[in-house]
């Protein structure tokens, strides 16, 4: 993949890579695990994630192919490193910046009862919206019930989703170099006509 600035080919390939990660929680989980660990071997991935070796090999190869992991082949045992991805989508007046933190939330969803229920009932867009509340919530500047109401979720379920995403935020804020670019719902009250 070319790295020239303003390269349209790279931009579109990057969009497809991010879309694939959003669509495939298994790849998302592997990607953010490598991002947090840095320089990991297949053996370590297998041990940490508890996935079959063949899956680890083929998924890591897919992520290298997508351009979001690199494989260092200079050592006898190959190691993997993740590249931080960031993608800003703009649809009419609506804008959202996707960073590894959202990808981490997607990777966790199948194993988390509240996140999987959220995605099943409301889609990935709602998960992305909930993350914008989980950030100020984790910082202690957004109340649980205000967030639940604005997300249009039943209070207790909304709180459970915030708790799940709080773990994502705490784990990712140090490793996601684009963390500050994620929208913060505290700064953006919902539109009156919403």
């Amino acid at each position, binding site marked *: 993949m070319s790295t020239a600035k303003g390269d349209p080919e790279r931009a579109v390939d990057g969009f497809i890579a991010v879309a694939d990660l959003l669509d495939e929680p298994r790849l998302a989980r592997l990607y953010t695990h490598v991002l947090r660990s840095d320089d990991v071997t297949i053996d370590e991935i297998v041990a940490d994630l508890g996935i079959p070796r063949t899956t680890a090999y083929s998924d890591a190869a897919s992520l290298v192919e997508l351009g979001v992991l690199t494989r260092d082949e200079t050592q006898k045992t190959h190691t993997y490193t993740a590249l931080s991805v960031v993608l800003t989508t703009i649809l009419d007046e609506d804008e959202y910046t996707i960073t590894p933190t959202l990808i981490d939330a997607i990777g966790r969803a199948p194993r988390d*009862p509240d996140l999987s229920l959220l995605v099943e009932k409301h889609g990935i867009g709602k998960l992305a919206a909930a993350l914008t509340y989980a950030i100020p919530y984790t910082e202690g500047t957004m109340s649980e*019930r205000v967030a639940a109401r604005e997300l249009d979720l039943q*209070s207790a*379920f909304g709180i*459970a989703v915030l*708790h799940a995403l709080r773990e994502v935020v705490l784990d990712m804020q140090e490793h996601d170099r684009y963390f500050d670019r994620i929208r913060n719902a505290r700064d953006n009250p919902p539109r009156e006509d919403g």
Partner: protein
Amino acid sequence: MTELDTANAGNPAWIADTGLFIACGRQQNDKYTALARFAQRHDRTFVIPHRVYDELGGAPERSTPDETPINTAIDAGWVRVADPPNYANSTVATVMDDVRGYIARASNRNEDTIEKADTALAGVAAQLLDGDEAAYIYLLTTDIHAGEGSVAAVEDAGFDGQIEVVDGFELIEEITS
């Protein structure tokens, strides 16, 4: 050392918020068992606003709050549902109004977007103190910022030094580590 082990005054009450039960259930069920054991070992009853009971009971199927055995806890005696806040009591009404303002400012929202029910925790605290049913309040919540608003409002109503927030995440960490 759990903060709750140090009774700052005689006759304390422990008011628990929805998030405390969810945080226990989300981890593993053994954390919920640990909370029950903790309450029973120290002979404590967690008081919950009716709002909390309704929230846990109204959660969608298969979510963590839906799986929370709150009725079992009530039957076992370590959780009790509080009397509804008496809005005719001016102390209770003032505290609840103040908490609304606090939550709105802290969350950067208009006060009219904060519902009265959001302040139920503080309402129950004020009612227990005002009716001399408790002399000291521990607020167990995972909504730290709403908890702090409750403390400020209750103290302003003349109960200075009679209430504190206990971070639900930290409490669970402590009783299960």
